[in-house]
């Protein structure tokens, strides 16, 4: 997918993956953002570190976080739908790996839609969060001129 704009990717293509570490500071920044100070996210239990707040993992899992995400000039994108499955807790101090795989692209009512799966996995290989996301691309301020070449 080198050099491709995001809307040009097809089913099976992947965005470049991302790794990140959740420090206590970063986790608490997101607790502040959503005003959720549940002790689960601040205190360890049973010898384990605090939990990463889900909103942090949600924030890191849209494809726009990928180092390879490139949006075409004059084009916008918007979130359309999210189906998330929470598979295991993530712990503060862990490194996480996010992958994005395009599952479908199609045109509908003048917009390009792109469906993709985001998978957040902890460094120990445990899957944490799986999201099926749908998003749209559109031209900013005028009728779309980018096309896929095939619609459904």
């Amino acid at each position, binding site marked *: 997918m080198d050099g491709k704009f995001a809307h040009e990717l097809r089913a099976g293509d992947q965005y470049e993956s991302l790794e990140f570490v959740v420090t206590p500071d*970063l986790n608490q920044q997101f607790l502040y953002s*959503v005003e*959720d100070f549940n002790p689960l996210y601040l205190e360890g239990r049973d010898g384990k570190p605090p939990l990463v707040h889900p909103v942090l993992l949600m924030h890191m899992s849209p494809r726009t976080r990928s180092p390879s995400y490139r949006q075409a000039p004059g084009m916008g994108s918007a979130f359309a739908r999210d189906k998330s499955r*929470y598979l295991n807790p993530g712990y503060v101090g862990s490194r996480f790996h996010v992958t994005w795989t395009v599952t479908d692209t199609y045109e509908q009512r003048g917009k390009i839609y792109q469906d993709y799966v985001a998978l957040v996995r902890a460094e120990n290989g445990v899957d944490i969060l799986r999201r099926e996301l749908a998003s749209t691309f559109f031209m900013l301020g005028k009728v779309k001129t980018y096309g896929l070449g095939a619609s459904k």
Partner: protein
Amino acid sequence: MNAALLQSEPGHIFEGRARCLTLARALALSGGPFDAPAWPEKNLHTDLKAANDAGIAAIVVSGTQWEGYLVGFLVDLFGMSWFRHGELDIKIPRSVKIGETVQPKARLETREVQPDGTWITLSVWCENQDGAQVLVGTAACMLIA
């Protein structure tokens, strides 16, 4: 709050805490790490010019922010079960501007006893200060016995 989920009748509505989406909270979510050299990052969720360049008249709060309210609320309802068995399917029908207030809510739809626990489904939504829905969907989770 697991007991409430197990004891309530279908149709019962649970309400999370209403929160005002301030600029400070939006910057915390969408501005990148506080200790980044150029914090906050400029994007349509944090910067008026970036929003204007994207054809939007005002900063638009990231939908992740109030989806985060909802998921935190679901953790309150389901406890640790949510982290292993939680499922959420949502759409965001309208945007939210800085200064609006958003509250997550859930209605108990079904409760089914299974060998490993109780499978619970909810209708979920977030509404703004005018009662308009800014997120709609369903949630489900197995409450382990």
